[in-house]
């Protein structure tokens, strides 16, 4: 119903859609010499030739070829372009590991308040007390949710948080005079984990996954030693299952002196139900653009605050936010503290993605503690319900769940049987889903699972939407039983059809020729 496809979509491309008939035209191609939208105020100070102000050799001769278009053309161009995107408000977006939950517009409204949106980052903290107070409150909230005492909001996204965590780990060990060189990550880990490890100057060592989908304890024990700086985990992990051995894992890691890092991308499964700090993690990053409703914006912005234990605290990035209780009834005062001798230093300019903090803080206050817990419970309920629905149908046979147990907020299917028995790859199923008005799940990740489909419905999808999604899967597999070509050539109804990604990398064209 929400998916909006009463009848099944076309299975051929005989009649191109309106968008398909339209040649993609860039704003630069719409440029006509002399046209313009914006205008700059007239000079109200003495007219001076630029020659007097900037030496000739430092001046630009030919202006950059920016587009020359009128305002109506710009608005029409980008409005039309926007309709070539699938978005969260079009239909279900069960993209595994990405937590595509509803983006409340209240958060956009409060982020746009001039007191937030128009606050200059170089404003004296004395005159930005509301902003520091908000950041302080968000730090405290995340601390409670993660079960770790100290928070830095500075990292700009999850991977930035990972890098921060690894540099904190390095600082921690070096401060204790230890030289550690290796970081362990499960073979199911997200690509940012190993990439961050390398950027932090460590060597990546893979840890195997056991038959329950958790960390293979024997493999872990065999690989851990004094050269290991850190174990990076996601829990529930990218298979959507909770590692039941987490306490033992933490014991082993701590015994070796390494730190235990929590990749918070899957926090949406356990808010109010379980806390990384209580599991023994030393460092956690949180993706505010996942569990805390910051819109993804087509690839950002986000924010990746980190929460840490006492032993890591001295190394947190600067500036820190400090609060001093206002004596006799006065309200407390907030300030930035730069004087942290052991700090790893800055990870970016100013104090982080404040606009994101505003949205996520508004989200946390809107739901409250119970609401966050209910959000996680419903996310897990929705995932298990969708999985059950899929099992009932053809997916049960062609797209079995990779690890057959109760899942958390997401689950991973294997398209291996579909490929084998129907000749339809996971990629084909995903593309065909587009014709049914759904965004496909994450595909071919985690690498561990053959032909993986990683499905995360989130708590904000309705039961009807999940039913419709399950039906679509079933119909696609039914089609494939009779004619696999349909999926192999899909999609048919999207603004463009299957794109040649290989050639785009072989002969990259990365800008409009002018």
């Amino acid at each position, binding site marked *: 119903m929400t998916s909006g496809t009463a009848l099944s979509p076309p299975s051929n491309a005989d009649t191109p859609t309106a968008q398909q008939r339209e040649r993609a035209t*860039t704003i630069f191609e719409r440029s006509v010499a002399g046209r313009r939208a914006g205008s700059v105020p007239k000079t109200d100070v003495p007219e001076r030739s630029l020659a007097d102000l900037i030496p000739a050799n430092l001046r630009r001769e030919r202006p950059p070829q920016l587009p020359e278009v009128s305002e109506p053309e710009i608005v029409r161009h980008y409005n039309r372009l926007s309709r070539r995107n699938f978005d969260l408000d079009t239909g279900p977006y069960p993209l595994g590991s990405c937590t595509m939950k509803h*983006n409340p517009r209240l958060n956009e409204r409060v982020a746009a308040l001039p007191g937030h949106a128009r606050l200059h980052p170089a404003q004296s903290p004395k005159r930005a007390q509301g902003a520091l107070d908000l950041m302080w409150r968000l730090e405290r909230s995340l601390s409670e949710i993660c079960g770790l005492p100290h928070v830095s909001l500075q990292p700009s996204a999850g991977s930035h948080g990972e890098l921060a965590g690894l540099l904190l780990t390095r600082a921690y060990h070096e401060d204790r005079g230890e030289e550690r060189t290796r970081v362990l990550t499960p073979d199911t880990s997200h690509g940012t984990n190993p990439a961050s490890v390398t950027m932090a100057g460590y060597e990546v060592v893979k840890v195997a996954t056991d038959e329950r989908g958790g960390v293979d304890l024997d493999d872990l024990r065999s690989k851990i030693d004094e050269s290991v700086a850190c174990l990076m985990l996601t829990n529930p992990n990218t298979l959507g299952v909770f590692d039941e051995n987490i306490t033992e894992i933490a014991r082993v890691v701590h015994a070796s002196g390494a730190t235990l890092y929590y990749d918070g991308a899957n926090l949406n499964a356990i808010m109010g139900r379980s806390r990384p700090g209580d599991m023994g993690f030393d460092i956690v990053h949180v993706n505010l653009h996942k569990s805390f409703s910051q819109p993804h914006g087509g690839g950002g912005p986000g924010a990746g605050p980190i929460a840490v234990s006492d032993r890591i605290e001295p190394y947190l990035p600067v500036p820190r936010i400090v609060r001093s209780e206002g004596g006799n009834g006065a309200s407390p005062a907030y300030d930035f503290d730069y004087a942290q001798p052991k700090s790893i230093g800055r990870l970016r300019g100013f104090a982080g993605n404040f606009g994101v903090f505003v949205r996520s803080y508004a989200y946390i206050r809107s739901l409250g503690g119970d609401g966050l817990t209910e959000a996680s419970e419903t996310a897990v309920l929705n995932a298990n319900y969708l999985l059950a629905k899929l099992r009932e149908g053809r997916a049960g046979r062609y797209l079995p769940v990779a690890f057959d147990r109760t899942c958390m907020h997401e689950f991973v299917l294997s398209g291996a049987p579909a490929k084998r028995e129907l000749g339809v790859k996971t990629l084909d199923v995903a593309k065909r889903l587009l014709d049914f008005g759904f965004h496909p799940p994450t595909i071919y990740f985690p690498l561990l699972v053959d032909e993986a489909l990683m499905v995360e419905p989130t708590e904000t999808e309705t039961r009807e939407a999940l039913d419709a999604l399950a039906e679509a899967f079933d119909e696609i597999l039914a089609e494939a039983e009779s004619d696999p070509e349909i999926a192999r050539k899909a999609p048919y109804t999207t603004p463009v059809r299957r794109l040649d990604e290989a050639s785009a990398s072989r002969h990259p064209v990365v800008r409009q020729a002018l």
Partner: protein
Amino acid sequence: MTRYTSATDSDRQAMLDAIGAGSIEELFDQVPAEVRLDRALDLPDGLTETECFDHLAGLAARNAHADAEVCFLGAGMYDHYVPAIVDAITQRSEFLTPYTPYQPEVSQGGLQVMFEFQTAISELTALPVSNASLYEGPSSVASAAYLAIGATKGRRKLVVSRGVHPHSCETLRTYAKGFGADVVEVGLDGGVTDAAELAEAVDTDTAAVFVQNPNFLGAVEDLEALAAVAKEAGALTVAAVDPLTLGVLRPPGESGVDIALGEGQSMGGRLDFGGPSFGFFAATEEHLRRMPGRIAGETTDADGRRGFVLALQTREQHIRREKATHNICTSQALNALGGVIYLAWLGRQGIVELGELMARRTAYARERLAGVEGVELLHEAPVVREFAVRLDAPVDEVLDRVAEDGIAAGYPLAREYPEYEDGLLVAITERRSKEDIDRLADSLGAAIGALRTHTVQKAPIPEEVAS
């Protein structure tokens, strides 16, 4: 039931039945008892939308923002006007809510925007290739270092001009720990990078030289001369540039720079107390396959239609993992969209006119302030949108007094430049009129005057000063 979920009690029951579970509790059985939270989160209760709005509005009201003050603050982010169409377009769900375009067939809007963005940045910097955004300015500098170390086969020295934004230098130092690289700083002379000192610092182990234009003190650097020194030693030149000055300043691509990057906030971005904004990153062709971040590329679909995809993904973490050119995943796509809309709005003529207006007003402001008793220029180098002065009174106290006149006078240099303990950085945009500048001058003069006489009462000093 939260207002963002829709599972009613009867939904929940029906769903549990379908799952074959007796309760939601049961679904969490896999979480070992010892790590289950057996209490409610210690957070305030949820608020209704109207209560939540009022609470946030209350916090916002305690910030002195740029509509409430006349703002001469800069230091990397600037109070430029954000055209209404930027908000109108970036707030459309179709741009606001999607994830990174992993399914290009339903992401052509976002992918074409990236392609247009890359074209605009390439035009601004006069460099052939650009990525689709990084987090923000300073961390982009550090990312360039990572590229340079790779590109120079493991050279491990990073030479940085003191004219580079302190946040960038500090971020570079933080990252350098991970890279196992050393950061060496080169001082300023007359407001600009000391070319001689640079020449000494750069050697065959130098991976890259980092400069900024205009530099942190507002001075226009001679990029070409500095780049020549680097090239000499086989090091890359990385220039952090201010995009809105590139209508009038010689672009990095025409000055021998290998990598140009910078903070994108001034192009249609909100101030947002420092973020989210975006970083841009452009380079010469040879570095394309080492670039960090997303890059959109043109291709065709099964029927030969023009389309766009994420190109060169083999550089990226989700494919190459530990061998990736960078770890970045979520970036700043929406802010970059704002940037390309802004540049289309400003246009080919506008970018030049804006640069000229800023240069003229900045020249006026600089002269006007230099004429104020107790204010002198910190350097005489050419400037276009920002300049530095020295105050003959405690800077912080001056700023507090001027703030009472509803003016944010500028950025104090003391913390990051102890050598300019009395320094103040003043920024100009198209929003700061001659009238505003005159108000600033008068208010500064009054504040300094008051504080000096004030000092007089405190300590005895030579007549000529007192009189």
